[in-house]
């Protein structure tokens, strides 16, 4: 749904739509009050449909894939692991490793902010995995794994991503980045 107050131009267009709706309602109410009420219901519905139907500019464009790099001589690995993952095998040549565990909350939990248990679970997994991998530290990521990778790469440049999860997660991560992605 488009935000009618995103810019002055869109707010002005929204105002024009409201003026047209108001003229229809006033004209109908002139004949009969209940006809005006019916026109108001239809006009509000039409404006809501107009707001919902109109695509947000750029929303349909594919999300740009994230590039990542590290200074010469370093080899950093970003590990994405689902909560509960027991172990991950990592290349010994890695100079630095960050383990990101998405706090996989349900939609209802995310909307209501009831994510404490999920985060605690993710924290335990991240800490356990990080303790078993040399030069590693663990972090909890966003509830969306692709977003967790997105976030992690913006503060931790990596040369490679290792996914400890299912095919779907691997495919999603692969679609978001330009660096090599492999399964643990």
């Amino acid at each position, binding site marked *: 749904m488009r*935000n009618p*107050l*995103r*810019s*002055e131009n869109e*707010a*002005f267009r*929204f*105002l024009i739509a*409201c*003026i047209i709706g*108001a003229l229809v*309602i*006033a004209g109908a*109410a002139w004949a009969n*009050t209940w006809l*005006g*009420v019916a026109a*108001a219901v239809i006009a509000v519905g039409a404006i809501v449909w107009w707001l919902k139907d109109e695509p947000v500019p750029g929303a349909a464009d594919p999300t740009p894939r994230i*590039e*990542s*790099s590290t200074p010469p001589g370093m080899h950093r690995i970003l590990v994405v692991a689902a909560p509960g993952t027991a172990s991950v095998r990592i290349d010994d040549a890695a100079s630095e490793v960050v383990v990101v565990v998405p706090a996989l909350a349900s939609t209802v939990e995310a909307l209501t902010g009831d994510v404490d248990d999920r985060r605690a679970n993710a924290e335990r997994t991240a800490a356990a995995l990080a303790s078993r991998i040399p030069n590693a530290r663990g972090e909890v*990521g*966003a509830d*969306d794994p692709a*977003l*967790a990778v997105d*976030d992690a790469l*913006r*503060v931790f*440049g990596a040369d490679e991503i290792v996914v400890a999860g299912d095919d779907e997660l691997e495919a999603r991560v692969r679609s978001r980045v*330009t660096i090599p992605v492999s399964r643990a």
Partner: protein
Amino acid sequence: MAAAHAEHLEHHGPPAPHYSSRVTPGVLGMFLFIASEVMLFGSFFTAYFFVRVVNGVQWPTPPYHLPVYVAFINTCILVTSSFTVHWALQSIKRGNVWGLRAGLLLTFLMGLTFLITQGIEYARIGFNTTNGAFPTIFFCLTGLHGAHVFVGLSILAFMTIRAFRGHFSAEHHHGVEIGGIYWHFVDVMWIVVYLTVYIL
């Protein structure tokens, strides 16, 4: 890759704000603003419809009459002021500083005219809040909107002063854009109030 690294090297001070939300802070802020206004006006409209539907009497309650035509002229003035603020923004986007100044000044004057007319309407309307639920909700709804117009006028006053001091240009006019959005919002709310209270 290289660009991101270069950007990192050029950045000074603490890291840039980073957030995991799927909604940008600006859009989230605007949605919260709209939500708070919907709740605020919604509570007043709920009271209005409760008074009108539950009582089931003629609106406005006899012997009171609402100045529909004066309010219509006032509506026209307020709606026109949205066109002038839009003109002001379009002018400064093209680098026309005098168009911006004239547009903002006209908008301010029309907004002031609306508010003064509403004040005169209050003084001459013949009832007040002690005359029952209908007058009370009438003053609450139109007064709540009037308060928004007053806030909008304050914003417009600062915008106009800044315009005459040359603070805006074709490249930098964010202050006009934001004020314009608020003014259009105030206009839309008045259209809803006018239709609900005066027409239906």
